[in-house]
């Protein structure tokens, strides 16, 4: 277990380093921040001087070295655009993105799992077919189309929900939450629906497929043969075994959600990390871009590690002996 954890962490560190390097070397190519940072009448010298000051002329390894040393200390420099420490900016945006992603995850689990279970257990009912059809549509409609349509219907036509932003937020220490105000919650609804639609269907389909597999297994047949009630068999046995891969996928999907949040946040002008990133991209705000990437990979690594740890908790086969299960006949 400890060995496993250490291996995971080492792996995580490797990932982070690789990401940092990729992120970093890439930023040399994404564009020139200088034009954005100077007035239009800037002279050639001003431009050259700014370039020099930005350190864009130093050699790549030197820049990378500086970057990593600083990044390890949580210092990602100052945003060219917002002129504030990137770490502050990220810390400010993190709650917005995480709240949205968290809400989307909860929503996709809360809706996706029961739908998946239902469609697996009642394969031929009309409701199952409906769910199936919905799920296919769900994974076929691009996020941005969903978002645009929601805005059109609920903001412009019906005027029920705000079309952008986070509404009012309440500061709890450094964490700003929109969950405690009515307008905050209202603002959350459409982005979360947009973001989770794909996830709901994904989770539903995954649960359904896994559940169908599990229902075919011998131990489920044997559980039925023992006369256990359907409830116990379906929910006590089948569901629990089904949820194992769901954990992994959900873990991975949190990563995907954070990435997809880029689109959702763009559509809804949600002041989260994705929007920050997109703005940084168009402004060529290099410190913010690198910090975002490193931050996102950090989140992935952390989530994946947690998921792996969860496995130890959930699956007794892993808990007892790690080397043993290889040798089974």
């Amino acid at each position, binding site marked *: 277990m*400890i*060995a*496993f954890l*250490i*291996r995971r962490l080492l792996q995580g560190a490797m990932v982070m380093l690789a990401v940092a390097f990729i992120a970093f070397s890439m930023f040399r190519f994404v564009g020139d921040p200088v034009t954005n940072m100077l007035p239009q009448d800037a002279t050639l010298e001003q431009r050259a001087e700014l370039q020099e000051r930005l350190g864009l002329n130093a050699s790549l390894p030197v820049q990378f070295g500086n970057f990593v040393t600083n990044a390890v200390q949580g210092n990602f420099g100052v945003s060219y655009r917002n002129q504030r420490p990137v770490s502050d900016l990220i810390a400010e945006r993190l709650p917005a993105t995480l709240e949205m992603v968290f809400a989307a995850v909860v929503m996709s689990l809360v809706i996706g799992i029961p739908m998946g279970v239902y469609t697996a257990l009642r394969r031929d009912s009309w409701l199952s077919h409906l769910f199936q059809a919905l799920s296919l549509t769900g994974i076929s409609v691009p996020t941005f189309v969903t978002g645009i349509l929601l805005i059109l219907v609920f903001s412009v036509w019906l005027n029920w929900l705000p079309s952008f932003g986070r509404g009012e937020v309440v500061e709890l220490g450094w964490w700003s939450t929109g969950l405690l105000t009515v307008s905050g919650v209202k603002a959350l609804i459409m982005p979360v629906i947009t973001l989770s639609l794909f996830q709901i269907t994904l989770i539903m389909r995954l649960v359904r497929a896994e559940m169908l597999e599990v229902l075919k297994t011998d131990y489920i047949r044997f559980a039925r043969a023992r006369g256990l009630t359907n409830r116990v068999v379906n929910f006590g046995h089948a569901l629990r075994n089904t949820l194992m891969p769901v954990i992994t996928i959900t873990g991975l999907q949190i990563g995907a959600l954070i990435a997809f949040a880029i689109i959702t946040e763009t559509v809804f002008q949600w002041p989260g990390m994705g929007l920050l990133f997109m703005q940084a991209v168009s402004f060529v705000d290099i410190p913010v871009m690198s910090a975002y990437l490193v931050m996102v990979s950090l989140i992935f690594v952390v989530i994946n590690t947690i998921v792996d740890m969860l496995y130890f908790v959930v699956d007794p086969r892993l808990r007892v002996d*790690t*080397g043993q299960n*290889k*040798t089974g*006949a």
Partner: protein
Amino acid sequence: MNMTQEIYSASATQTRPREDVSDMPSVTPVFRIANLKRHFDVSPPLLNRLLERKERQVVKAVDGVSFDIYRGETFSLVGESGCGKSTIAKLVVGLNDTTSGNIEFEGEDIATHSRQDMDAIRHRLQMIFQDPYASLNPRWRVRNIIAEPLTVFGLLDGQKAIDERVATLLECVGLNAQDGEKYPHEFSGGQRQRISIARALASNPEFIVCDEPTSALDVSVQAQILNLMKDLQREFALTYLFISHDLSVVYHISDRIGVMYLGRLVEVGTKHELFRRPQHPYTRMLLDSIPDLKMTGRARTPVGGEVPSPLDPPSGCAFHPRCPHANARCKREAPRPLHNVERGFVACHAVEEGRLITRA
């Protein structure tokens, strides 16, 4: 008198053995296997070993096995699951590398052969597998499956020659020449095993390793296959290394038998020797546990205990925890083979010390 003894004496009196040891077809071994070892490293990763203070774990799947196979005979290996039978089979045909020891095929040590050298003799060794469903590529036509050795070894030139040969082979194993156009899933288990055999025969091998060729088949089909194998052996002067855990099948097909326990051979002998006068306590136990039809209602004497984990085999004689005759020496010291019968041996302290009276 005990049941088993009854069987032994019965069989001894009822029928004469087909062949006697003395008129064995050949006295030169085709295969000479000496002190063959194959270990698998199944240790957990280094980090785990360091942190959890675990030892390096090695499965000694085959741990110092020596035996000879003579031309034209059927040599069988029996033993419980996991004792290393299949591993030996794979070593013999070169599917696995040896850890140490020699495998001499007609005087050449193939264990140390290079790829090229091995290619030269490969077509003389063939193998038939256990699972008739997994041993044929489901996406290939039977014709191509059987022709594959021919094309790979370059034994025949021209599509026509190959087609003819395939047709002959199919008929040889009791199928129709036209069956070559079909796919494996269109055949029953027994028919598939025939196809396997046809493929094995394609390259005119002298020696065929059969790893439980009938254990996935129904008895009625098993009889067909066993008969076919015997016929083919006669027709093509084949030598078989036959592996099974079914003692009755082994008795039926073999000339000589080796009994394996946890990676070692505990006893080798001609089938009549072995079945009539089993020496090793494990062999006796196995024989006792054969359920027999004609003995309905008889309770078998179950072997006590279970096969120990090959990861952590008992010290000394690996069988000692289950052996009624074990003593301190058995726990301590691994027995050496005692060549007290022709073309066979037994590895047991009790036999060596005369503590165990050979039955019958």
